[in-house]
């Protein structure tokens, strides 16, 4: 569902990604773990189509047998993203209804009202919130809106950029549960970027550990749970996560 081969990215002569390759199967949940500056967010940006220049092969979504580059509209039907900051990712002057309607309007899809209501139900937002503005919602509720927006076009792939790191602990649990349920219901493929190993344990099947723009290790979550990561950097992250 996601195929990344020899992805390299440079920003003004500084190489931030070095020949990164990985594959994510349909319905799988895959994590990119690393510290800031490791290049994990850059990979996400490349897959989201927000990087103007890179080298290597990227394929995403169902229609991945052609080398024809995606148009922005085609890509939108295949992959959507949930951002880290629930306060910055919603347009401050548009109601929840506007925000959820927008992707349907862009793609000229019918039955907008019923789709919006169904999506509010699916992400656990009360229907009465439909015409609220973002500032009338809590952080967790906003993140639910962001997830709903990402799912409006029914893409098979979701990119999750630290989706719970800005949230309170108890709210994080709700959002993680929601993401897990949605993935099971809709057979979604997740690519999660995070620095939080316990979140990976809960939500993902496999993970890749990034350091200084290179993948140093790809492992099953089972290895993470039992502390059996093979790379020394992976072990370091594990130790830090467990013992601080």
């Amino acid at each position, binding site marked *: 569902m996601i195929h990344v081969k020899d992805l390299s990215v440079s920003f003004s002569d500084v190489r931030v990604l070095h020949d990164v390759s990985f594959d994510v199967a349909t319905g799988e949940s895959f994590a990119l773990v690393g510290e800031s500056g490791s290049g994990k967010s850059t990979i996400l940006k490349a897959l989201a189509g927000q990087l103007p220049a890179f080298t290597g092969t990227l394929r995403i979504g169902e229609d991945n047998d052609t080398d024809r580059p995606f148009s922005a509209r085609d890509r939108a039907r295949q992959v959507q993203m949930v951002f880290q900051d629930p306060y*910055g990712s919603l347009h401050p002057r548009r109601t929840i209804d506007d925000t959820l309607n927008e992707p349907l309007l862009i793609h000229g899809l019918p039955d907008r009202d019923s789709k919006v209501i169904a999506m509010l139900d699916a992400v656990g937002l009360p229907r009465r919130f439909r015409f609220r503005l973002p500032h009338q919602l809590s952080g967790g509720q906003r993140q639910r809106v962001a997830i709903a927006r990402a799912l409006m076009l029914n893409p098979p792939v979701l990119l999750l950029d630290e989706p719970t790191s800005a949230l309170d602990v108890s709210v994080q649990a709700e959002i993680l549960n929601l993401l897990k349920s949605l993935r099971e219901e809709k057979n979604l493929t997740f690519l999660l970027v995070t620095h939080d190993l316990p979140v990976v344990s809960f939500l993902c099947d496999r993970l890749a550990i990034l350091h200084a723009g290179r993948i140093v290790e790809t492992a099953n979550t089972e290895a993470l749970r039992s502390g059996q990561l093979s790379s020394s950097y992976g072990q370091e992250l594990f130790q830090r996560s467990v013992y601080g």
Partner: protein
Amino acid sequence: MITRGWLLSDDPETRMQARLGVSYRLARDLMRNPLAMVGLMIILALLLVAAFAPWLAPYSPVEGTLADRLQPPSAAHWMGTDELGRDILSRVIYGARITLMIVLLVAIISAPLGLLIGTVAGYFGGWVDRVLMGLTDIFLSLPRLVLALAFVAALGPGIENAVIAIAIAAWPVYARIARAEVLTFRNSEFLDAIRMQGASRLRIIARHVMPLCISSTIVRVTLDMAGIILTAAGLGFLGLGAQPPLPEWGAMISRGRSFILDQWWVATMPGFAIVIVSLGFCLFGDGLRDVLDPKQRSRG
């Protein structure tokens, strides 16, 4: 039935109710600012005077009685008469129409133009930004009145040309403001999100970027109204705006200048009108800014 509770509801049931609720909150906040209300009263008075000028004016604005020339204010002529014996009050009342027309036309032409140029420059950045802002800077570097003067000189005197000239001189400020506003949020995630949904650039600018700049533009235009009135008056004063016998306030001051020492009322009465109306727009604009643009709120 529309009640206060219905308008203030946190959970509006329809799009309509949500929009009315937002407007109601704005109006309520505005009402709490007494100076803004004074400004609004002045603007409303201007509108009413302009609308009902033929009924309000006691005399004709263009025909005078030469026998009554340069009469001081009296019961018959509240603001006195000018050098052709025309009633100044009537001329000031009719002048409200001209002033209002100039102000509205300039706002309608220059605000959208400035908004469009500013948002496009700010959103696209790069060479588009450099070209558009270079252009803007050229316009900004010249004093507004001088620029308007140059355009009127090229287009020929007259009220329509004055409007076009003032509009051409006014848009760069709005473009600058809109661009600055766009730069504060052009890299924000809500725009990334909308790009990922496959929205076209036109759609992003028109539906997502512009609405965030509109309130600061409205505020700025309202505050600029005074400047527009003064520029129009300045052009009138120089004889390049409204032509006689149109009762434009600036032109009236200009004519009254010759008698300013002995017959002060001829120049002073339209001067009062300009000051009061400018003040009204300023006060209202300040109030609007406090309500629409909480970031720049002047008081705590």
